[in-house]
């Protein structure tokens, strides 16, 4: 028995699907094949912005082995993940909007034939002026990327909470600066893959039901969008999610190939599988946008924040995607980490002729958090305060509702800060390490699922069904999408804990829309909290029936029935303790399930009153007494947690927030500009760690991904062409470059989470980038306001500090970089020279004209 009084919860256990992954037996979408399956290949646009004048597929069509070719006209219905952003079509209609946009698809008997056919499709384009920089794009009057979006602004929001001007007037010190975080992508190991197959009516040959296997985080949304584009009822579409090789948000919306495969299968009347090449994965993108943050913070002498003003411009790429949500998260999650009494937020999501950005781990919050936590450090340095103290004086006092309407109940941030300070030796070492070596601190937080779903409705966000058979086998049906984060394992654990049965009894059937009830999917860290709560409710419903039958059999009150470790007993009986331990060896569950069927069981039933029974006996008693043993649970966030009524107020609220504090130790080579991260201490408040191994894995993985964004990862563009579309050029840290990451789990036990659990998979990422930047400042005294902190940028900052002439060191890598570097000097907007809404004033425009990008 574990110390916390649970039998399955809180124990470090292997994922229920681990063996399938280590033996290679587990099937991902690209591992599947069907008889007569065709290979789909997509023709991509070579232009960043062009009108399609004509597509001629006649030469390709006659190639031996080509079965079908589809273009935009074959599926012109618009879709998009957000109801406000239906601006995509499966294949381009009239216009292409980025290099890599989808133009046509060939379904052929082999990859070679399909590739060859792509070369035979003749497309006539009329190139249009293209926009690559968001601030330039906002000046556009003509040749708009989407006609319905003037100035190429997808969406802008202007929020005022409290009285920001009064707050700044009260401040003893006001700090302002511009921070830039460049574009990064998920680069999940599994390239997107989709297999689509229509059943054919054997008599008429007409198309019947559609089955789609896809690498997706959101089976339900995909089913919904397929229905929209193909004009099929959702009930005629079966969506199955096989194993998914990582998502990080890149599979949390409908990716073009998922629709294209179905459209091609419809045309070919045969199963079609499309798997992206790595380059195509980079084009599909939906990653974290390049974000320009102009941040102004007013503080009292002791570091207490009086007011924050934040302007965010996001380079969103060619389609809306999750953009509206991203720009709202950037503003909303300024709140709920610290106590900020006054906030002004101006957010602009801008369209450019590059692949669409979308949701990526820490959706919308990461780049603003980098700016905010860096600024906290700058303020601490200016006021000669300990950065840890500055954070402490700004802590929230929960339970509370923040000025922008976010409800906070559990709040483990204070303990997280204490833990990393103690473990890293912060007090003795910060500011006292030898030159070239330093410590930096930062905090972050994230939602445990969005309190409002994308499609506004009152339906539950998660539903879970359970059935138990006579041999005690428990089958759980959940729509939650396992993507490697452990959602199946979490579901099994919660059900096993509630029912008091062994974990291996529980079989999870997940993410098959014919079998499993609706779940919104794996995004915004919602699964443990929402699907977990639904699983708990379903298990409790079943348990009620088992308990009442067991109470009848044991002739005791239902309250006296205990269920634990595959054993059911009357808690008043004296033998229960020994029996509990005896049943430990049965806890594995595969032992005696089968033999208890039939006559053996009947004999036992006739033995008369007893004080304890096995799980199987109790199940049989319950089925005999109640009939089929099934249960359903669902979860919808409470109304109190759904946020304010202001426009855009639906994004940001969550039933619970996770908290993270981190300290990074780095050294900087002043000759080469190279940063080495030696160690990161990361404390994460996950409410309760249902499975500590999984929580540690999520936290360490988040920190590591933040490390990549801080030091190396960056999508480099030239005139809309991605210069590094491969895992070799888009560098992420290898094991040789990855530091020790010490994960400290803090359990604040949330009152509404399942067993107190909340988010673990994303919240830690955002703190890593500023922690490293702050550590670089501690090491060599330069402030990096543009991520990633590449050797070029470090050297440029070091030279600037010494008053040396700036050299455009990044030119060889990225011709657009020098222009970006020139933007470092802070925003005119904050010097009072521009209007509050986005600056289109002449002074700024002329500054840009001389800057002259593209």
């Amino acid at each position: 028995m574990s110390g916390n009084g649970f039998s399955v919860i809180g124990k470090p256990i292997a994922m229920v699907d681990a063996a399938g992954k280590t033996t290679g037996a587990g099937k991902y979408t690209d591992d599947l094949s069907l008889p007569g399956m065709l290979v789909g290949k997509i023709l991509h646009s070579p232009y960043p912005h062009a009108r399609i004048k004509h597509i001629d597929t006649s030469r390709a069509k006659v190639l031996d082995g080509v079965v079908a070719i589809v273009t935009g006209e074959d599926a012109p219905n618009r879709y998009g993940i957000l109801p406000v952003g239906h601006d995509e079509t499966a294949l381009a209609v009239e216009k292409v909007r980025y290099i890599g946009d989808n133009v046509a698809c060939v379904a052929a008997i082999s990859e070679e034939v399909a590739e060859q056919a792509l070369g035979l499709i003749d497309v006539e384009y009329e190139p249009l002026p293209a926009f690559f920089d968001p601030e330039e794009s906002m000046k556009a009057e003509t040749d708009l990327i989407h006609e319905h979006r003037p100035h190429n602004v997808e969406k802008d929001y202007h929020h005022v909470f409290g009285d920001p001007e009064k707050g700044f007037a009260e401040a003893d010190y006001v700090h302002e600066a511009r921070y830039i975080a460049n574009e990064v992508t998920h680069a999940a190991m599994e390239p997107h893959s989709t297999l689509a197959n229509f059943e054919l009516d054997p008599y008429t040959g007409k198309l019947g039901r559609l089955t789609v296997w896809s690498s997706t985080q959101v089976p339900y949304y995909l089913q919904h969008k397929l229905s929209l584009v193909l004009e099929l009822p959702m009930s005629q579409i079966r969506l199955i999610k096989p194993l998914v090789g990582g998502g990080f948000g890149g599979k949390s919306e409908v990716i073009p190939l998922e629709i294209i495969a179905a459209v091609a299968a419809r045309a070919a009347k045969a199963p079609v599988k499309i798997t992206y090449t790595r380059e195509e994965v980079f084009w599909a993108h939906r990653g974290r946008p390049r974000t320009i943050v102009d941040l102004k913070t007013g503080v009292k002498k002791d570091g207490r924040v009086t007011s924050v003003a934040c302007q965010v411009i996001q380079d969103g790429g060619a389609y809306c995607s999750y953009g509206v949500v991203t720009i709202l998260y950037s503003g909303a999650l300024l709140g709920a980490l610290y106590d900020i009494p006054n906030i002004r937020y101006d957010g602009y999501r801008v369209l450019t002729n590059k692949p669409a950005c979308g949701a990526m781990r820490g959706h919308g919050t990461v780049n603003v958090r980098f700016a905010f936590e860096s600024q906290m450090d700058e303020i601490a340095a200016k006021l000669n305060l300990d950065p840890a103290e500055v954070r402490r004086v700004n802590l929230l006092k929960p339970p509370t509702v923040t000025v922008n309407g976010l409800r906070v109940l559990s709040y483990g941030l204070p303990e997280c800060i204490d833990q990393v300070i103690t473990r890293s030796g912060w007090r003795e070492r910060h500011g006292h390490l030898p030159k070239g070596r330093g410590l930096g601190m930062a905090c972050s937080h994230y939602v445990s699922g969005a309190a409002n779903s994308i499609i506004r409705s009152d339906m539950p966000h998660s539903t879970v069904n359970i059935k138990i058979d006579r041999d005690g086998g428990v089958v759980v049906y959940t729509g939650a999408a396992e993507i490697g984060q452990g959602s199946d394992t979490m579901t099994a654990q919660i059900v096993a804990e509630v029912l008091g049965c062994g974990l291996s009894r529980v079989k999870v059937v997940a993410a098959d829309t014919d079998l499993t009830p609706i779940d919104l999917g794996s995004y915004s860290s919602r699964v443990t909290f929402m699907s977990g709560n639904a699983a708990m409710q379903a298990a409790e419903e079943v348990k009620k029936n088992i308990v009442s039958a067991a109470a009848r059999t044991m002739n005791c009150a239902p309250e006296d029935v205990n269920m634990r470790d595959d054993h059911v007993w009357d808690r008043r009986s004296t033998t229960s303790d020994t029996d509990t331990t005896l049943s430990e060896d049965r806890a594995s569950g595969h032992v005696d399930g089968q033999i208890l069927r039939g006559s053996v069981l009947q004999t036992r039933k006739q033995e008369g009153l007893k004080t304890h029974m096995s799980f199987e006996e109790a199940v049989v008693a319950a089925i005999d007494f109640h009939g089929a043993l099934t249960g359903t649970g669902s979860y919808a966030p409470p109304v109190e947690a759904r946020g304010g009524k202001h426009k855009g107020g639906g994004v940001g609220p969550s039933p619970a927030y996770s908290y993270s504090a981190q300290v990074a130790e780095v050294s900087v080579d002043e000759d080469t500009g190279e940063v080495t991260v030696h160690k990161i201490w990361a404390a994460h408040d996950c409410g309760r760690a249902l499975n500590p191994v999984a929580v540690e894995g999520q936290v360490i993985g988040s920190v590591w991904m933040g490390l990549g964004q801080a030091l190396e990862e960056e999508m480099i563009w030239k005139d809309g062409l991605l210069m590094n579309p491969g895992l070799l050029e888009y560098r992420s840290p290898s094991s040789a470059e990855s530091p020790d990451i010490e994960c400290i789990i803090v359990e604040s036990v949330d009152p509404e989470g399942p067993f107190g659990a909340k988010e673990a998979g994303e919240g830690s990422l955002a703190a890593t980038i500023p922690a490293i930047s702050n550590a670089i400042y501690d090491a060599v005294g330069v402030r990096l306001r543009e991520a990633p902190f590449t050797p070029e940028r470090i050297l440029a900052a070091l030279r600037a500090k010494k008053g040396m002439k700036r050299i455009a060191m990044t030119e060889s890598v990225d011709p657009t970089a020098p222009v970006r570097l020139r933007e470092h000097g802070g925003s005119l907007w904050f010097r009072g020279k521009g209007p509050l809404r986005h600056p289109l004033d002449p002074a700024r425009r002329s500054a840009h004209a001389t800057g002259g990008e593209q």
Partner: protein
Amino acid sequence: MKKELIELRVNGRTHELAVEPNKLLLDVLRQDLNLTGSKRACDDSSCGACTVQVDGIPMLSCTMLAASCEGQEITTVEGVADHGALAALQKAYGDFGGSQCGFCTPGFMMTVRWLLANNPEPTEDEIREALSSNLCRCTGYTQMYQAVRAAIAADEKGLKHELVETK
């Protein structure tokens, strides 16, 4: 391209196959032999997800011609299991969280298996260096080091057990 007959020995079994001379080993394994454990993830031999062992040496099957492997002993992740049960390394990767989404795991299995066969007591740095040939986007590698250590410990324990039994 015209197909040719080759004999390929994979996981201890010999297969006679008709393949194009330009067909990659990874494609033959995945498409002709339906051994889908080895994964394609990068297209430019930078990620290691397709790693198999050829005569005991970890090789990237996405950049090898199948025909060039005739007469050599190929081991894929499907051949790692120990008499049908999980090898110590496989179990340890599961127990210690060395595998999350699992897409890179087959490649890591082949790399670590080679490491432990050639260096039964690797130092921390040697483990890091060996693993750096493979990319993982989920784990941050930390839990993999624990898994490798646990696998070594389990193997040692098993070895001692065998020695006692033979005595």
